């Protein structure tokens, strides 16, 4: 994978419709979301600063993905506030991008998948090939996207997310079904994005991955943030019993 000419797909701020008031810091207060009477998120508070990569961790069913979708404006919470420095989640959606665990690729060529996003965002195709090169897929530009391997597909999904020039990049267990090499490729790209100033918020079960890419860890338990500490301290010294149990592989209820 080559290094990238970031200018090729950085925003042309002169035509940005929303202006570029920063979305961060993020302030979440009293977030509630439930299904059929069972509360998944129950009065969740969260503050995120303007830089770096945050990993959201927690047991299955802790509401990590739901939290991510609420932050991205895909789901409306039952109660509570999400404040992207003055903008609501739905206002902020346009300046964010999300990579899902299972990449949803259009039934088109690899290049056409990127073209679709670029066109939807009113951007020129100018930076497309640089972006494909960046994720190591330039030689597959004409291939059918749905014939890519799992790792390639996820790299394309990531390229597609980057093509929107997001301020925030959400990753929802983006490497959960990938082998170690493919996982490493994605992590490299994510670290690179982070280094270029894109704020990364990811959900992961992979403690190793969190250690490698995250600056801070948000640990969800009981519908709330039970712990929000720098990654450096979270793994050696988890502050809560739930986090200790989780890291030790015990079932946390």
């Amino acid at each position, binding site marked *: 994978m080559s290094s990238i000419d970031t200018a090729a797909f950085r925003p042309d701020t002169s035509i940005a419709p929303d202006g570029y008031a920063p979305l961060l810091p993020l302030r979440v207060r009293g977030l509630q979301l439930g299904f059929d009477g069972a509360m998944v998120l129950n009065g969740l508070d969260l503050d995120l600063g303007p830089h770096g990569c945050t990993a959201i961790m927690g047991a299955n069913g802790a509401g990590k993905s739901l939290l991510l979708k609420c932050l*991205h404006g*895909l789901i409306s919470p039952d109660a509570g506030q999400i404040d992207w420095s003055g903008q609501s989640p739905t206002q902020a*959606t*346009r300046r*964010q*991008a*999300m990579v*899902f665990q299972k990449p*949803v690729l*259009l*039934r*088109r060529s690899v290049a056409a998948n990127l073209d*679709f*996003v670029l066109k*939807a*965002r009113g951007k020129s195709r100018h930076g497309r090939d640089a972006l494909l090169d960046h994720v190591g897929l330039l030689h597959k530009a004409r291939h*059918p*996207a*749905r*014939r890519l391997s799992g790792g390639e597909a996820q790299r394309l999904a990531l390229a597609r997310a980057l093509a*929107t020039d997001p301020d925030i990049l959400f990753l929802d267990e983006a490497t959960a079904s990938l082998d170690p090499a493919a996982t490493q490729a994605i992590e490299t790209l994510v670290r690179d994005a982070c280094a270029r100033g894109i704020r990364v918020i990811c959900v992961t079960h992979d403690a190793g991955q969190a250690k490698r890419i995250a600056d801070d860890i948000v640990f969800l338990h009981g519908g709330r943030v039970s712990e929000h500490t720098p990654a450096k301290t979270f793994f050696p010294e988890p502050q809560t019993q739930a986090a200790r149990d989780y890291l030790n592989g015990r079932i946390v209820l």
Partner: protein
Amino acid sequence: MQNIGEAFSLALALVASGDADLFEIVGLSLQVSLSATVLACLIGLPIGALVAISKFPGRGALLVLMNALMGLPPVVVGLMVYLNFSRSGPLGFLGLLYTPTAMIVAQTILIAPIVAALSRQVLEDLHAEYAEHFRSLCLSRMQTVSALLWDARYSLLTVALAGFGRAVAEVGAVIIVGGNIDHLTRVMTTAIALETSKGDLALALALGLVLLTIALGVNAAVQSLRMSARRQAYV
């Protein structure tokens, strides 16, 4: 049944001899039914797509209605079009009755609900797969519809084929609004009906075999398109 063997040899002889009347009738059948299929797609696909991606009160009732309209009897459609296009009807001034145009209109009305209802099902399934990604991209309704239509193109081809099959095989509507006029509005099905009424069952059956062969050809062409698409995982 000596008629069937006779029909086969007659069908072969008709085709082999390059019978001009036969080719005229086949040509008009294809022209009318393909035009109706194109028009029905232009009408039915956007409706199917909009219903597929929309939630609104009464949607369930609309789906029932759309599915019910798939069963429109051709004769009823023919009569509706006849009453409108008759010189004494509201659209009589157009002078469309007993023209191929009237037949196209009737078949379009007949199959547009089929295209709408079947494409709605196809596109709703596809939308379920794409919806979250599209919302993440903040796509407009128009962008969503056009992306779904394009990505489902090979499945929609099968939908169009279902419509074409119904159109090219129906006799009830075209015989009323077309009048089965020789060299003007006679198509395969009305010719078959005519030969049956003349008691020439072998010729009627032979025409039926030709129609079947055409249907096979069209289906085979679409099938091979779909197979090549499947290899690229575009289906």
